C-alpha cells in the first residue's frame, strides 16, 4: 500500500485575527502529482511556505515523509526541492554555478556533483546554456534552470509554486513535459499550485482552496463528475419529439441557434435520447464540464483574476 508523502492535519495560519489558512487537512500519496488550486490570496503560498519550513504556523500538524516540518526542520529540508513563484536563482552566476552552489548547500557527495548536474541539465534540456549567466536567459530557460536546481539533490518531494506563470503557451507545454518526465523517471511526489486548470487535469489529485478552506479534494475526473454538468447540443430536422422526451424525463433544455441545448448531470438520459432519435439528429456535440466549471461552481469565481 502506498504511503503518504505529505500529511497536513488541521493546519491553521493566522495574521492577527485573519485566518489565511483555516483548519485544513489533506494528504498526498507518495509518487503522485497533486495540484493545489485557488484564487489569489486563498492560502496556497502560505501552505507551501509552511510546508517548506520558511513560515510559522498557528496550529495543526504538517509532515513530510513522516517528519514534522516544525520540529524536524533539517530532515524536511533535505527531502524537499522547491521551485518558487519568483526566480530565486543567483542572477549573476551561471546556471552551472547555481547548481554547484545548491549541491554544496544540500551536501551532495562531491564525486557525484558533476554527474548530477549533467543529469538534470539534460532532463530539462538546457545543456547548451550551462555556462550562461542566469540574467542572460529568457523566462522559460530560467524556469527550466530552476526546476533543474530543485531536482539536483534528488528530493523526495518537489514543490512547484506556479511553475508556468508568465510563460508563453509553448514554453508552458515544454515545462510540463519536463515535469512529467521527471515524475516518471524519479517517481517523486510533486506538489504544485497553478492558475492553469488544464494543467491540473493531468494531476492525480486536485484540492481546491478558497478563503483558507479546502472546498474539494479528489481526482480531476471525480471532481468534474460531481461538480459539473454535461451540455449536449443537438441539430435536428424534427425537434418536437425530442422536446417531448426532455419534458417527460425532466431534462433542462434551451433553444440555441437552430438547435437544442440540453444540460444534464448524468450522461445516461442523453444516450437514451440519442439512440431513440438517431434518424432525425443531424449533428451532435457533447460538452463535458471542465475543471474551470468545477472551480467556478465551488468558488464562484474564475481562477484567472
Amino acid at each position, binding site marked *: 500500500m502506498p504511503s503518504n508523502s505529505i500529511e497536513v492535519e488541521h493546519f491553521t495560519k493566522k495574521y492577527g485575527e485573519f485566518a489565511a489558512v483555516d483548519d485544513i487537512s489533506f494528504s498526498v500519496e507518495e509518487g503522485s502529482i497533486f495540484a493545489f488550486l485557488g484564487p489569489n*490570496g486563498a492560502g*496556497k503560498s502560505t501552505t507551501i511556505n509552511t510546508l517548506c519550513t520558511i513560515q*510559522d504556523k498557528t496550529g495543526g500538524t504538517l509532515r513530510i515523509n513522516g517528519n514534522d516540518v516544525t520540529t524536524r526542520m533539517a530532515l524536511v*529540508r533535505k527531502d524537499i526541492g522547491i521551485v*518558487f513563484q519568483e526566480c530565486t536563482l543567483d542572477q549573476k552566476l551561471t546556471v552551472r554555478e547555481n547548481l554547484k552552489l545548491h549541491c554544496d*548547500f544540500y551536501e551532495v557527495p562531491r564525486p557525484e556533483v558533476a554527474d548530477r548536474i549533467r543529469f538534470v541539465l539534460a532532463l530539462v534540456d538546457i545543456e547548451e546554456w550551462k555556462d550562461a549567466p542566469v540574467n542572460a536567459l529568457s523566462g522559460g530557460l530560467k524556469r527550466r534552470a530552476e526546476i533543474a536546481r530543485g531536482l539536483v539533490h534528488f528530493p523526495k518531494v518537489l514543490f512547484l509554486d506556479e511553475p508556468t506563470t508568465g510563460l508563453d503557451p509553448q514554453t508552458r507545454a515544454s515545462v510540463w513535459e519536463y515535469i512529467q518526465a521527471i515524475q516518471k523517471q524519479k517517481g517523486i511526489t510533486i506538489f504544485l499550485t497553478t492558475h492553469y486548470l488544464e494543467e491540473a487535469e493531468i494531476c492525480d489529485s486536485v484540492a481546491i482552496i478558497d478563503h483558507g478552506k479546502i472546498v474539494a479534494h479528489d481526482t480531476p475526473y471525480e471532481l468534474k463528475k460531481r461538480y459539473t454538468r454535461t451540455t449536449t447540443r443537438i441539430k435536428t430536422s424534427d425537434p418536437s419529439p425530442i422536446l417531448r422526451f426532455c419534458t417527460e424525463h425532466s431534462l433542462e433544455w434551451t433553444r440555441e441557434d437552430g438547435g437544442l441545448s440540453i444540460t444534464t448531470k448524468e450522461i445516461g438520459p442523453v444516450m437514451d435520447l440519442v439512440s431513440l432519435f438517431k434518424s432525425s439528429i443531424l449533428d451532435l456535440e457533447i460538452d463535458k464540464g471542465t475543471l474551470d466549471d468545477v472551480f467556478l461552481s465551488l468558488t464562484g469565481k474564475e481562477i484567472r483574476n
Partner: protein
Amino acid sequence: MRAIQAILVRNLIKLFRDKTRFFFTLFMSGLLLFTFSFVMKSAVAGLDHPMNYLISGIVIMMVFQSALNNSMNILEDISSGFMKEILVAPIARWQIAIGQIMSSTVIAVLQGILVLVLGFFLGLRLDPFHFLLMTGLMVLVGLTFSSLGLFLAALAKESTTFQVLITVVTMPLTFLSGAYIPTTVLPSVLRPVVYLNPLTYATSMFRYAALHMESMSTAQLVKTGVAFDIHGFVIRPEHGAIITLAIGATFFALCVRQFRKADFSRVTVFKRGGHR
C-alpha cells in the same frame, strides 16, 4: 563547513564578476587615499610619522565602511529572491551568518591591504611585523562591523531606508572616531560621543600599531589621542581590541538570533505575483 565555504566562494565570484563595481571600489580607495593624504598633510606636519598617521586612519575607515557595505549585499539577495534558496536549504542559520560575515570581512581586508600597499608609494613606512599586526587588526575590525552590518540588514524591511540609515550612522561615527580628525582637537562636548563610538577604539589600536607606539608611556598615548583618559579611567589601545571583539561577538549573536526568527519571505522587494 561546506555551506560556509560555498557562500564565501559565491560572494567572491560575484565581487570579481561585477567588473564595474570592482573597479569603482578600487578607484574609490585610491582616490580617498590620495585626496586625504594631500589635504591633511599640513594638519599632521608636526608628527613623527605623518603618513603612517594619516594612512592608518584612512585604511581603518575603508575597512569599516567596506565591511558594513558588503554586509548590505544580503539585502540584494533578499530582494532578488536568492535568499529564499538559502533559507530553504538544510543549512543552520549560524552557518549562513558566518558565511556572509566571512565574505564581507575578506573583501574589506583585501581592500584595506590594497590601500596599505598603495600607501607605501606615498611614504608609509612599516616593517613586516607591524604590517601583519595591522592585517590582523583589520580582520578584527572587519568581522565586527560585518556582523553589525548584517544585523542591521536583517532588521531592515526595505533596502532604500536601510541605505539612508547606514549613511546617517556612519558619517558621524567616522568623523568622531579620530580617523581623519584627531580626537584631541574635538570640542569637549563631543567627548562622550567619541568614547561611546566603537570606531574610536578600532582606530586607536590600529594607529597604535601603525605608528609603532609600543614604547610610549600611557600619558603620551593619551596626549596623541590613541589612549583615552575618561575621568581617570584609562583605556589603552590593547583594551580597544577587546572592546572591538566584544562588540563583534555581541552583534554576531544578535545576527544569528535575528536570522532564526526573521521571516525573509516578506521582505521581497520585486515580486512576480501576489503572495499570501
